[in-house]
């Protein structure tokens, strides 16, 4: 037994003898332990979150007033591109893989993930990809300035930074595919005896579906960027009309990956919320079965709606109609999930610790993002709003207030389990309130900017957009700075604080809460006995 949670924090290696694994840096490079790898994923994702966040502040600083102030339009485009790629692939996705690594084996009573070495490899592919992406800023021509969607022919014009982005995407894709194979296998094969699929915790369900989405969609992205690479260097013309290709083909392929990607991020977030809300409502999750069906339905439909990102590319009318109807359909299972969470709270016995606050923040703001998504689904309206700040506002409500707030809910919820110490509740609450207030100051005005017609991805704008942009920038800086509180909270909890019990939340149930906090390095080497009455907590 020893401290597994410290991520290179030397002062923590003082508990027990270390047992049978290397120490120092070798431990982290060679580890096959799901807890170690989970911690590395989480730290990596937080570092990337800070890097991507700093880039967003460059964007917002430039947009503080009309005119060009701090950066050139070229560099601005690079910031827009890297901010998105880093946040999506470097911050949000690894954060939820980190949660999966830490929690899935403990939730299902497994000793570890199914494939330990694969797990190590999936993590260690990430740093090279991150280095490729960030280093591309310093090569001649700079990073890709195409937006994260990498549309040709613009991406064919770019310099070597584009090739670095392409290889980074390849590596990230490999990492995701290996990670999801591991997760799917773990969930399907390593559950404790008696834990049937319909009895397993909902977080496992969301990751099971997400795993399949990743396995199905990541190769498609890899194919798209590989075709881009050969168009750039080997004379193919997949996306060039002069050689019989079509630039819009890339968009179809990209979004066939890109839309499931949205749910790859959202589904695990739903999973976390489905644990936090019941725990602090002291009640079972309402409608477990319908939650599972909704997750599966969302996962399935996500493959059939991709061209709603392409309403202005010249789709035929029938195509637009089909994609509009299919997109509207997604609102139904998403609505079911929201209603289930709301009903879970109904006649519960609610308390408002930080995880619950973030879950409520998620519920409120994700619902706003979902509802503006319904507006955008309507093709005629979307044609007005496509490529405006309305879209920027919409997906930040879904991605930041959705995925990020859910990640924070998970972090505060499980931190006592990981570190063995309670976090500082007042700081956590302060973090929540600053986040939600500044988030709304930053992003709510962007709806109005988009309605009034301000295009996205521009470093300079007409003067009638000034006031809301000033607001948005103030909010963004407030939001960015508030996020540093998380570091304080996490370090405090690592160093000490009130001892966490094995089950610090009286409403939380499941195998993970039967283990001591922090859990020993190896857990459930013998499968625990599953009590069906405990299920769905």
């Amino acid at each position, binding site marked *: 037994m020893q401290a597994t949670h410290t991520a290179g924090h030397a002062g923590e290696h003082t508990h027990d003898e270390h047992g049978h694994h290397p120490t120092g840096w070798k431990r982290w490079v060679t580890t096959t332990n799901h807890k170690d790898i989970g911690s590395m994923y989480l730290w990596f994702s937080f570092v990337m979150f800070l890097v991507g966040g700093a880039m967003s502040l460059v964007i917002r600083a430039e947009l503080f007033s009309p*005119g060009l102030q701090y950066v050139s339009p070229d560099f601005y*485009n690079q910031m827009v591109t890297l901010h998105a790629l880093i946040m999506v692939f470097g911050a949000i996705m690894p954060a939820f893989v980190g949660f999966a690594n830490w929690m899935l084996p403990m939730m299902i009573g497994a000793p570890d993930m199914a494939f330990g070495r694969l797990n190590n490899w999936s993590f260690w592919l990430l740093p090279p990809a991150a280095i490729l992406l960030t280093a591309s800023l310093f090569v001649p021509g700079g990073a890709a300035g195409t937006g994260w969607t990498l549309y040709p022919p613009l991406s064919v014009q770019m310099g070597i930074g584009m090739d670095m982005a392409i290889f980074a995407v390849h590596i990230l894709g490999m990492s995701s595919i290996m990670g999801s194979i591991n997760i799917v296998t773990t969930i399907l094969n390593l559950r404790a005896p008696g834990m049937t699929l319909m009895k397993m915790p909902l977080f496992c369900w969301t990751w099971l579906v997400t795993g399949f989405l990743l396995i199905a969609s990541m190769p498609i992205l890899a194919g798209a960027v590989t075709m881009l690479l050969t168009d750039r260097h080997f004379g193919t013309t997949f996306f060039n009309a002069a050689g019989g290709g079509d630039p819009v083909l890339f968009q179809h392929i990209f979004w066939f990956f890109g839309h499931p990607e949205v749910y790859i991020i959202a589904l695990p977030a739903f999973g976390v919320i489905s644990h936090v809300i019941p725990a602090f409502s*002291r009640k079972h999750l309402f409608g477990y079965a319908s939650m599972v069906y909704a997750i599966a339905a969302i996962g399935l439909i996500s493959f059939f709606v991709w061209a709603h990102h392409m309403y202005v590319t010249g789709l035929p009318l029938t195509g637009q109609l089909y994609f509009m109807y299919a997109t509207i359909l997604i609102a139904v299972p998403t609505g079911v999930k929201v209603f289930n969470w709301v009903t879970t709270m109904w006649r519960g016995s609610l308390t408002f610790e930080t995880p619950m606050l973030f879950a409520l923040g998620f519920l409120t703001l994700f619902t706003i993002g979902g509802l503006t998504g319904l507006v955008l689904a309507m093709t005629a309206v979307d044609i007005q709003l496509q490529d405006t700040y309305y879209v920027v506002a919409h997906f930040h409500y879904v991605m930041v207030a959705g995925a990020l707030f859910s990640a924070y809910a998970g972090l505060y919820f499980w931190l006592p389990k990981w570190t063995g110490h309670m976090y500082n509740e007042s700081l956590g609450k302060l973090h929540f309130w600053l986040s939600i207030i500044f988030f709304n100051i930053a992003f709510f005005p962007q709806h*109005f900017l988009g309605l009034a017609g301000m295009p996205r991805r521009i470093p300079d704008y007409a003067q009638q957009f000034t006031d809301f942009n000033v607001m948005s920038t103030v909010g963004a800086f407030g939001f960015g700075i508030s996020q540093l509180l998380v570091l304080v909270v996490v370090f405090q909890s690592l160093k000490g604080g009130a001892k966490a019990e094995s089950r610090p939340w009286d409403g939380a149930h499941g195998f993970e809460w039967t283990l001591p906090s922090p859990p020993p390095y190896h857990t459930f080497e013998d499968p625990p006995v599953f009590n069906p009455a405990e299920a769905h907590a």
Partner: protein
Amino acid sequence: MARNSIRNDYLKQLSASGARQTESTPQEDRGTRGAPSFLGRLGSVGLLATFSRAASAAWELNLQEPVTATAKHVYELHSLLLWIITVIFIGVFAVVTYSLIFHRKSKGYKASDFHDNTTLEIAWTVVPTLILVGLAFPATSALVKMRDTSQPDLTIKATGYQWKWGYEYLTGDAAGIKFMSVMSTPREQIENKAPKGEHYLLEVDRPLVVPVGKKVRVLTTATDVIHSWSVPAFAVKTDAVPGFLRDTWFRAEKEGTYRGQCSELCGKDHAFMPVVVEVVSEEKYAAWVADQKQKLASAADDPNKTWTLDELVARGEAVYTANCAACHQANGQGLPPAFPALDGSKVAKGSKQGHIEMVLNGKPGTAMASFGAQLSDTDIAAVVAYERNAWSNKLGEVIQPAEVKALRGK
């Protein structure tokens, strides 16, 4: 409705007074108030309340004032959606708020234990489905009307270039008129060295001119990367895809100047290629067409003229400023490495033929576009001569249009 009609009268006066199109007031450009119908009024007055009425353009809270039937449909559809999502949001979060207030542990509320209710679950699957099916009807009808580009009165091709729009009138009296429309906001304003004008970034040297009340079909395409031709007041936005034609249409119901921007990231100056459409009366349109035709005829160059170096350089400098300076910069230093310097460059100081071919055909896989279709032989001869004689490139070479003509298509 009184407010609207007063406003419309005001606009009519504005239009009637003529000569105001290029210097139209902000109200004329970007509707700040007013809604086209009952639903629209509900949308802006009800939800956006006091703000909306007192709003200056700067605090615009809603879609721009529509000036086409399509844009009105979109405006109404958006207002309807805004109402529905607001009601849903309030409904759901009223329940949440009730729980948050009354079902607290701190108030001693004991959790009850229920976790399934089939009736409820069927209800909240079926009811939203019905609402969505209901919404699909107006959404479909608006879209079908929006996409009907048949039987236009006038067809114009809009071509996206990095970073300007080219317009060509394809049918009617104006057929044959073609010109580039380049942002006219001075660089000093962008670099904050001069106060910004009223239409900062939304003004061009030559706007697209169309007659009021006519169905104008716009074909979009591009030569380099994907652009998007967009005018919010018309609810028009269509990508311009290199190698393909897309189409859209509008029938402007009010004279005035309407402004939009490129809406697909197209490289470094994406923010600087506005779309400006002037909608004028039929008479003014006819006068404009006659004027353009005359200018076109007189501007045609005599292909047999022999040009002197001074003439070429003078003309070439103007061509350079309009077409080349955005990347290669006025001082010829470029923005390396994406946009190389011309001052002292291998191409500009190398063989004449290689230089002309570079301008004619561009360089595939880079941002260097092909200018063969955009510029006349004379313009290319002039700009190449200018580049070979400007800055430190004092080659003293004269290039005649015939030399360019000879290299075309090779």
